[in-house]
């Protein structure tokens, strides 16, 4: 099987790199020795940053929501502009190993440092659970192993290179993983674009016309309206909500600890700026292809499910990908009108949350061989003025990128490549996150707070120990996923945007910012955002009670504004930071004399 070959081969490559790039000192473990070339760092940052959410979920999301998905495309790329101009160069000049390290030293307070540790751990753990889940999905679908076995296998690989190699091992494996994932995303995108539009570049293809003479986007709008969906190129959510979501995603991107540490690994301040530039080029290669993949995937999906006559396709005649994903539980068909044909339109076919089917342990099959869900809708109601038939299908958004090559009937090696790419995306991000967690614990908690007397060797041992524990916790989440992984990943950005980003910015741009202001600001940002999300996502708050109509994903923007206001007000009422610290802040604004990242 090609999938085994591709995924197995990529694993061997990662392990080989891990052995070659073992870390011998804390400095190698934390910042790869501080001598990474900006292009290599750009690739590593891109792989670190582009997770299962970018690779697997984003195109699927845009495929289903259309224009409103712009918030994610702009948010997850625009953050790099903030990073390059507002944070990375100065943090590099300050020359520390971690984000809590900067917070603790700049604000001269171990309380601030500990809050920094808490923010880092909360953000990174919420994020890592989603990655392990992504690995599990790919394994269960392509390698036909149990999801749990897949997660454990993924854990073992990450364990190997993160624990052995630290930042050094991670950096060079991420360079390899970037190459795998960018090929895996763009090759099928070229195929799809060429097949649907005749243009090889999806960036151009999405704007071109089909054989019918109608443009791709106009066709999408037409198909959507015909089936009772909202128009593809029109917005559905309120502008203010989308605005807040974009702000939260951008500032969250700039405030993600595992991305920020990547800029501590380059030799000079100048290199921190160019690294951000390279990173965004490498990210843009994938991100600008996403809207095309989303659009073509949507056209193909609708036309395959509803057939050329738009009347539905016989279940017996549907291609095998449909049945494979049905077996994986991420797709479902409920033959509501009993005609044996699959019909796809607006509305839910099952009674689960978001129309999701639930299947019980036994493999119950219906008259045509389809899986029977326990919560299939029994009525056949639909609005005949808007759509031709009732919806009978559930398609999980997360399968779009993975299923796309199969739906488009691309060669088998392309499908195997996509599977290897998805695994690379998930593992590279998981490793970066685990490293940040272990550094926060070993360096900021053990060395800087609890026991400053431990030596380099002991600190390194604590870091490896913390990485092992973190991998096990992440694996637990992968095997027992909290049913809300997808939302939780988005929430991590909100938390980063309300806690880490403002405190770093104030530390650099506002010399007068002091200990009290920073602590008050971080607490207000963190607590208000986590509280709001908790109440509306898990606490059963209804969307009618949203503050100014802002959904939980966008609340990070409000939390950030609160953070800024509270921090500045409190700082103005309390004594300014020491002369020494004000001089240090002036110094971090000047590139010269950055030297290497140092511990003291």
């Amino acid at each position, binding site marked *: 099987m090609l999938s085994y070959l591709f995924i197995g081969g990529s694993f061997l490559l990662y392990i080989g790199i891990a052995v070659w790039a073992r870390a011998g000192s804390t400095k190698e473990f934390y910042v790869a020795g501080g001598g990474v070339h900006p292009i290599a760092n750009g690739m590593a940052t891109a792989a670190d940053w582009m997770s299962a959410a970018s690779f697997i979920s984003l195109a699927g999301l845009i495929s289903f929501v259309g*224009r409103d998905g712009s918030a994610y495309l*702009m948010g997850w790329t625009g953050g790099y*502009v903030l990073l*390059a*101009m507002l944070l990375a160069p100065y943090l590099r000049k300050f020359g520390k190993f971690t984000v809590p390290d900067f917070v603790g030293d700049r604000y001269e307070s171990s309380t601030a440092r500990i809050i920094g540790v808490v923010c880092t751990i909360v953000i990174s753990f919420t994020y890592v659970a989603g990655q392990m889940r992504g690995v599990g999905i790919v394994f269960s679908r392509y390698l036909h192993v149990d999801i749990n076995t897949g997660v454990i296998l993924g854990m073992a690989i990450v364990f190997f290179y993160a624990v052995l190699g630290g930042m050094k091992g991670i950096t060079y494996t991420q360079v390899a993983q970037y190459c795998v994932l960018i090929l895996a995303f763009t090759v099928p995108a070229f195929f799809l674009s060429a097949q649907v539009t005749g243009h090889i570049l999806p960036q151009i293809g999405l*704007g*071109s016309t089909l054989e019918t003479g109608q443009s791709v986007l106009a066709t999408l709008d037409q198909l959507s309206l015909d089936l009772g969906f909202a128009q593809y190129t029109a917005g559905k959510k309120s502008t203010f909500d989308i605005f807040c979501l*974009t702000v939260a995603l951008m500032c969250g991107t700039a405030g993600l600890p595992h991305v920020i540490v990547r800029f501590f690994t380059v030799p000079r301040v100048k290199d921190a700026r160019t690294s951000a530039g390279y990173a965004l080029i490498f990210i843009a290669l994938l991100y600008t292809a996403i*809207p095309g993949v989303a659009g073509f995937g949507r056209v193909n999906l609708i036309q395959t499910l509803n057939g050329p006559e738009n009347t539905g396709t016989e279940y017996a005649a549907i291609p095998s990908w449909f049945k494979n994903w049905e077996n994986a539980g991420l797709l479902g068909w409920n033959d509501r009108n009993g005609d044996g044909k699959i019909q796809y339109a607006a509305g839910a076919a099952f009674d689960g949350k978001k129309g999701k089917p639930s299947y019980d342990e036994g493999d119950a099959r219906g008259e045509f061989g389809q899986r029977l869900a326990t919560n299939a809708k029994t009525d056949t109601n639909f609005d005949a003025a808007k759509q031709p038939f009732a919806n009978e299908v559930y398609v999980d958004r997360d399968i779009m990128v993975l299923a796309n090559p199969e739906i488009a009937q691309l060669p088998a090696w392309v499908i195997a490549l996509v599977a290897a790419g998805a695994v690379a995306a998930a593992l590279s991000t998981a490793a970066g996150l685990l490293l940040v967690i272990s550094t926060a614990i070993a360096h900021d908690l053990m060395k800087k707070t609890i026991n400053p007397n431990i030596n380099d060797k002991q600190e390194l041992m604590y870091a490896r120990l913390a990485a092992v524990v973190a991998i096990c916790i992440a694996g637990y989440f992968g095997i027992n996923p909290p049913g809300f992984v997808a939302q939780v990943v988005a929430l991590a950005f909100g938390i980063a945007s309300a806690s880490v980003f403002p405190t770093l910015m104030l530390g650099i741009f506002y010399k007068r910012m002091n200990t009290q202001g920073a602590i008050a600001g971080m607490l207000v940002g963190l607590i208000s955002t986590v509280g709001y999300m908790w109440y509306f996502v898990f606490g059963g708050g209804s969307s009618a009670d949203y503050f100014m109509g802002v959904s939980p994903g966008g609340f990070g923007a409000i939390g950030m504004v609160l953070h800024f206001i509270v921090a500045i007000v409190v700082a103005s009422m309390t004594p300014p930071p020491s002369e020494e610290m004000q001089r240090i802040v002036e110094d971090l604004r*000047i590139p010269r004399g950055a030297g290497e990242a140092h511990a003291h």
Partner: protein
Amino acid sequence: MSISSESAKAYWAENLRIIMTYLAIWFVVSYGAGLLFVDQLDQINFFGFPLGFWFGQQGSIFVFVILIWAYVASMNKLDEKYDVQE
């Protein structure tokens, strides 16, 4: 530091001005064209895309890349002007 505090201040002020200029463009292409004025811009056809939709899903990303590299170039020049490069 070899650099005088006055020239450090001037360097920082110029840096802030450069950042403000680029962030203004950053805001206009993303939040402006891709979000706030998207419906008006969508009336214009741009190589088969409604213009606002294009900015939201493609154009803003291209501009972001250009902005970072423009900032890199501006800052390299500024570092040399004030002799603070490494």
